[in-house]
């Protein structure tokens, strides 16, 4: 509260309290990007996440000093962390949009599997790499839009609709592939994961491009604004004239699109696809988004935060791998981190409510 604000209310008179005004606008201009708004809150949280990342790397360096003394190894390790994060990162971009828009998508892993399997059938492969990419994208977007239609027009709860889709899409993927691993014969597809540009894996570039587009979409376009409005207050969005149903549908379509891209990346990585691939991706993506500060109730979240969440998860996996620890222990730590992240989120919310309350009384 600025000083002039206080005097203005204290006067308690209808309108016309002129001379105070200029001072106030002058003072109020300063927190433009500044400290106290939503932006700064996001910035602080993202800095905290960077801090967590630094701590994780420090733990790695502390536990494996001989590895970390080799600078080539360190560089390669960073690249392998990023490569590990790339596929799930692309899925998380879509997930972030869905959650900010007030929904949830449990079917992402299943969509990745279905799209991957569909793209690697003998029939699809006969059309070459272009046909495979096209198929993966179209299948994934279509499944995403079906989710969207069920949720927005069929009024199904997102949790239920996408849970059902999870089961159904995996089932269809198993049916199509006859539960066999389908080898990709496309040199182009297989070359994506193997390829590097300036020493950095192509998959990392793909993630960078998707995340950048996602950031622009969320922060600089009407689509992003609608997403925040729909997730923040669906009734207000509706009464402001926003077509909430269509937008909700599109959000799931967007999530599907990200899954399609991830399917190609994952197929390329394994030079094959199977119905069981991308297992539990939904959990990783949701966890990454939440750790990144996306509000589960919608209306708030950042792409940068989500990407940091993904990288933190990949770093933990990497940390366990270089120390030769089991995946089981790794999963326990990840679970703990998810709970910690949600607790922090709730705590922050309580603090905000308390603050508001104090201002009221």
């Amino acid at each position, binding site marked *: 509260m600025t000083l002039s604000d206080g005097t203005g*209310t204290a006067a308690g008179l209808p309108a016309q309290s002129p001379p105070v*005004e200029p001072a106030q606008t002058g003072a109020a201009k300063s927190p433009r990007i500044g400290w106290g708004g939503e932006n700064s809150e996001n910035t602080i949280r993202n800095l905290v996440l960077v801090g967590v990342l630094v701590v994780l790397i420090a733990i790695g360096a502390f536990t494996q000093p001989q590895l970390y003394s080799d600078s080539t190894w360190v560089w390669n390790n960073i690249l392998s962390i990023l490569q590990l994060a790339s596929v799930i990162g692309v899925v998380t971009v879509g997930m972030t949009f869905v959650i900010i828009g007030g929904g949830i998508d449990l079917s992402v892993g299943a969509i990745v599997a279905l799209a991957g399997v569909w793209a690697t059938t003998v029939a699809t492969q006969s059309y070459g790499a272009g046909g495979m990419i096209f198929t993966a994208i179209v299948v994934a977007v279509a499944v995403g839009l079906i989710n969207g239609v069920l949720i927005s027009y069929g009024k199904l709860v997102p949790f239920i609709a996408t849970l059902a889709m999870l089961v159904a899409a995996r089932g269809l993927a198993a049916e199509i592939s006859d539960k066999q691993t389908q080898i990709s014969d496309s040199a182009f597809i297989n070359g994506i994961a193997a390829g590097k540009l300036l020493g950095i894996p192509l998959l990392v570039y793909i993630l960078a491009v998707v995340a950048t587009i996602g950031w622009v979409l969320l922060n*600089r376009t009407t689509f992003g604004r609608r997403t925040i409005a729909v997730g923040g207050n669906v009734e*207000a969005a509706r009464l402001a004239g926003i077509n909430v149903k269509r937008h909700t549908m599109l959000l799931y379509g967007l999530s599907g699109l990200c899954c399609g891209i991830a399917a190609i990346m994952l197929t390329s990585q394994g030079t094959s696809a199977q119905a069981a691939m991308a297992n539990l991706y939904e959990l990783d993506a949701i966890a990454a988004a939440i750790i990144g500060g996306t509000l589960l109730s919608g209306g708030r979240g950042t792409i940068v935060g989500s990407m940091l969440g993904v990288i933190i998860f990949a770093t933990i996996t990497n940390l366990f791998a270089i120390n030769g620890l089991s995946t089981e222990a790794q999963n326990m730590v990840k679970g703990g981190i998810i709970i910690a992240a949600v607790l922090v989120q709730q705590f922050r919310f309580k603090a905000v409510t308390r603050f508001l309350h104090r201002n*009221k009384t």
Partner: protein
Amino acid sequence: MTGPGDVVLRLTDVVKTFPGVRALDGVQLEVRAGEVHCLLGQNGAGKSTLIKVLSGLHRPDSGTVEWLGQPVTFSNPQAAMKAGIATIYQELDLVEDLTVAENVFLGHEPKVAGFVRRRAMVARTTGILGRLGHGEIPPRRAVHRLQAAGKQIVSMARALSHEARLLIMDEPSAVLAHDEVENLFRIIRELTAQGIAVVYISHRLEEIRTIGDRVTVLKDGRTTAADLSAAETPTSELVSRMTGRTIEYVFPPRVAAPAERAELLAVDGLSRAGEFTDVSLTVAAGEIVGIAGLVGSGRSELLETIYGARRADTGTVTVAGRRLPPGNVGAAVRAGLGMAPEERKSQALLLGEPIYRNMTLSTFTRIARLGFTSARRERDEADRVARSLDLRPSDVGRPVRTLSGGNQQKVVVGRWLLGDTRLLLLDEPTRGVDVGARAELYRVIHRLAAEGVGVLLVSSEVPEVLGLADRVLVMREGRLIRTASAGELDEDTVLDLVMAGSLMEGTPI
């Protein structure tokens, strides 16, 4: 112990303030054992707040509440319940999927070693229902299978299960049909005969005359009359006690509207089952039309249906000669309609988002270029509107939740100043708004009308409707019952119209 006729509850100078509003501003109330004490007052007079103070939802800022001779403050509803004060809200707070008995004993189930004694619970419920004269309600039936009247009985049974000595009933007749009201009254008489005190809130004067013993009138958070006889006080006196004003409504002088005005909105035969029936009205460019009516008269639903937020069963809405598709807000907005809904926070604002983004919520697509938004252009446009509305604080980058109620409302109205709004629908535009911001909002409404924007306004505050509108429509139970120019009506007449009749049509007051 108290005998019949002794004072069980005494409120002295109770004050409760909320940001920008003094909801209770010195309330006196005295309730005696075995009487039906009626609370009368217009919407916003403080009745709901008073109930919440009595039932432990709010704590008074100052003043004393004496219960059975002891000063008390209830820190939560359970404490009030325990002390013997039970409240039956208009929206009954029952758990629909539990049984009658489970609802009656919710939170204080008879238990042995942590296990609910189901049979004892059912038996005791049967007993209480019998005492209420409704032994026919099966205690094991799920509450959602009961009619509204039955649910109300369950609520009362719950109160009795707590050995309540004071029963507060907030518009209990609103959900009931005629013969059910008779039954309700019979139960109330039986309860009072047992020494239980009842605080009865209703807008229907004739009910108060039938069931009430004494009346306390609230207005603008103050007690304006106490200890009136429910049966004998003339209606004119009750109405004048409710309306005699202390808040000054400062209406800016109206620029005379041009005589010839193009018709902007035409609503023809609009109906929605259970909400409103066969409503026809028109609003011309530059005209302010006010709808007066009680909460529940269907006025908000009507506004939302015109706006397309609800889909009409029958009837048409035409804006400037073009029919609007039903149930399509987007089309209404494109046709130049804008609405400031009743519940600002839940229906209009993104509280965590900055002011400018709230202002541009319905125009950011137009301000954007090729789908790319521009924070700078949005801020500039919002700045312009914020200045014209004298928004405080004027920094449009602040989160909207940091604003007072009045300034939040300016943001909602300001949203439509950014677009090409031709017709503005305002639902309770000054609810929870302090006097200063209120006057500014009035000025904005007048200015818009002077610029040729049509305004359709709903307000519970009759003076506001009369002071602002060129033409007044009176709405009761989903129907428009009177249309008149504002000059032809006065506050008492309008209040008479909105309150009269209703259930017991024809009963002389």
